[in-house]
């Protein structure tokens, strides 16, 4: 059975996988180069990463048909590490990122990702799009109309060509046309070659030349943790999208582990940390890719092209890459969230905006996610801590029944106390908890306090309608705070 699954994963769709793999490889090249430039490293670092991650994920990933490689989200996180400490520290951080992700997979922590609310995910995606866009603006500095013209031409080809043919990826055609214009027109524009070396070599095994001590660990650990979290977030989101597009299931813990293994190996082969790519995975599935073979073909064909065409790649003008990146940012942005912003609950909209603002201000996607999750948690606590109390007078004014509706826990007990009238002229009070739940120590403490205040005025208190769990909690810790005189 297992062998049969494996066969299906690999060879269930050979023709579709090979063709889509080739399409993806062509689309991967400009992105891998551009993301390297965002991170501040040589284009080879991103190309090696996309090659190695795509190939390894083909074997150890949990979601067949998904494409992984060097990504914008990850590149943006490593900018300061590269600038302050250099490339070797990036390789070390990449390896550590992988180790953290493997641990996530082994301890089955993929489900922790469900604590990231969707408004935070939308904010994450939108912030990523904005950062990719703003990272391109530096290429326009001090450039003339030629730069703007070439970028406009790139975008025009990218968006108009698919109306006529979808046989070749329009991004690739755009790059070829603009590069040809730059070479044969002999116009002096900046090229990829000006920004870093391109070699026509296969990646080789290396051990990062860094001092192996605690100080190094303290430098790379924060980066690795952020990379690990952001990488898993984007990978699992992408896996869900591919699940939906292909109407199949995938193993999220295996995917976390696979992403980790891919990053560890990539770090040792001179690549930068990466993760699953939403855009490329959508392209792959749309082009007919379904199996593991598609990722393997994408990775190997990418490397093959670099070996053959390395010299030409160096002559791609920055204008063409900037155009491609602008397209990437436009398609990454979730435009439906703008259209529907006014329809969303105000708190959801606020969480989304806070996530975006935090990311744009700090240039750190992981901080945005953290801020978003915290704010959502606070909003949630505020929403759920609304407690309603109805008063009913019974027994001709001798008894009063308080019906409590809502969740009683640390955030809601303050409101709760104000809802009772302790100076009533009644003999007996019944607190009906059949529509509420006692959650913690504070809840029991609050009930004890209410009971005590009524008793001070000579009013007897009884409870009714406690559910099993609340009863158990109350029995275990009830009366404690009263006795100790809180």
């Amino acid at each position, binding site marked *: 059975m297992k062998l049969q699954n494996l066969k299906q994963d690999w060879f269930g769709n050979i023709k579709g996988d090979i063709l889509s793999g080739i399409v993806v490889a062509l689309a991967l090249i400009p992105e891998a180069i551009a993301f390297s430039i965002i991170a501040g490293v040589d284009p080879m670092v991103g190309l090696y990463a996309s090659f190695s991650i795509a190939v390894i994920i083909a074997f150890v990933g949990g979601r067949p048909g998904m494409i992984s490689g060097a990504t914008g989200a990850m590149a943006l996180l490593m900018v300061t590490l590269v600038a302050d400490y250099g490339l070797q520290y990036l390789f070390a951080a990449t390896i550590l990122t992988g180790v953290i992700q493997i641990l996530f997979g082994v301890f089955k922590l993929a489900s922790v990702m*469900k604590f990231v609310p*969707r408004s935070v*995910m*939308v904010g994450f*995606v939108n912030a990523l799009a904005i950062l990719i866009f703003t990272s391109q603006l530096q290429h326009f500095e001090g450039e003339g109309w030629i730069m703007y013209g070439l970028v406009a031409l790139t975008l025009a080809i990218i*968006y108009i060509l698919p*109306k006529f043919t979808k046989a070749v990826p329009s991004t690739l055609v755009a790059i070829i046309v603009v590069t040809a214009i730059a070479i044969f027109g002999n116009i002096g524009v900046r090229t990829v070659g000006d920004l870093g070396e391109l070699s026509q070599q296969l990646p080789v095994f290396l051990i990062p030349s860094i001092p192996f001590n605690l100080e190094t660990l303290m430098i790379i650990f924060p980066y690795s943790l952020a990379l690990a979290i952001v990488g898993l977030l984007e990978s699992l*989101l992408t896996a*869900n*999208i591919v*699940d*939906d*597009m*292909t*109407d199949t299931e995938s193993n999220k813990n295996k995917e976390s582990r696979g992403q980790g293994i891919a990053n560890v190996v990539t770090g040792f082969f001179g690549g930068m940390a990466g993760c699953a790519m*939403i855009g490329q995975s*959508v392209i792959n*599935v*749309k082009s007919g890719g379904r199996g593991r073979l598609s990722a393997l073909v994408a990775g190997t064909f990418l490397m093959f092209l670099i070996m053959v065409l390395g010299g030409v790649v160096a002559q791609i003008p920055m204008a063409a890459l900037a155009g491609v990146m602008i397209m990437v940012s436009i398609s990454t942005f*979730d435009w*439906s*969230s703008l259209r529907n912003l006014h329809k969303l609950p105000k708190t959801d909209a606020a969480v989304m905006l806070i996530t975006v603002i935090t990311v744009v201000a700090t240039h750190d996607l992981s901080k945005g996610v953290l801020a978003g999750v915290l704010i959502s948690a606070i909003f949630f606590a505020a929403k759920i801590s609304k407690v309603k109390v109805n008063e009913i007078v019974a027994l001709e004014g001798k008894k009063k029944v308080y019906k409590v509706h809502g969740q009683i826990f640390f955030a809601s007990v303050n409101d709760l106390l104000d809802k009772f009238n302790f100076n009533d002229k009644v003999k007996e009070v019944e607190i009906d908890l059949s529509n509420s739940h006692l959650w913690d120590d504070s809840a029991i403490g609050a009930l004890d306090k209410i009971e005590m205040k009524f008793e001070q005025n000579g009013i007897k208190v009884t409870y009714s309608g406690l559910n099993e769990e609340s009863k158990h909690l109350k029995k275990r810790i009830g009366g404690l705070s009263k006795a100790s005189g809180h």
Partner: protein
Amino acid sequence: MYKKILLATDGSKHSIRSAEHAIYLADSFDSVIELVYVVGGEKSKEDVLHSVDKYEVKREREEKLRPIQEQLENAGLQYNSHLLHGEPGPTIVKFANENAFDLVVVGSRGLNNLQTMILGSVSHKVAKRVSCPVLIVK
């Protein structure tokens, strides 16, 4: 004559109008309607991003089909619903040609020339490539 009718829908107002035409035909010819909703790649991405889990995605899509299903039920017609994945145009064409339909009913979104050039017209693609008669409801 038209025993098996494919009704393509996207849950929009336009597709409710095409449902009315499909119902009228199905009534006259005593036919079975196969309701088809296609989720494209971009739509997939959008739906997954905005939902807590796949169950919510499923529920929201079912809700989208609900008004049209109610229309069919109120008319007392026999129908089946299909949720397909892929690019809307080619997916409808493939489904129609593989299942030997007698008629395909699609709504036209009423785009202008520029929008048609940029977005591409699903109804146009379907009309061109489906082997049975196609009714485009404007």
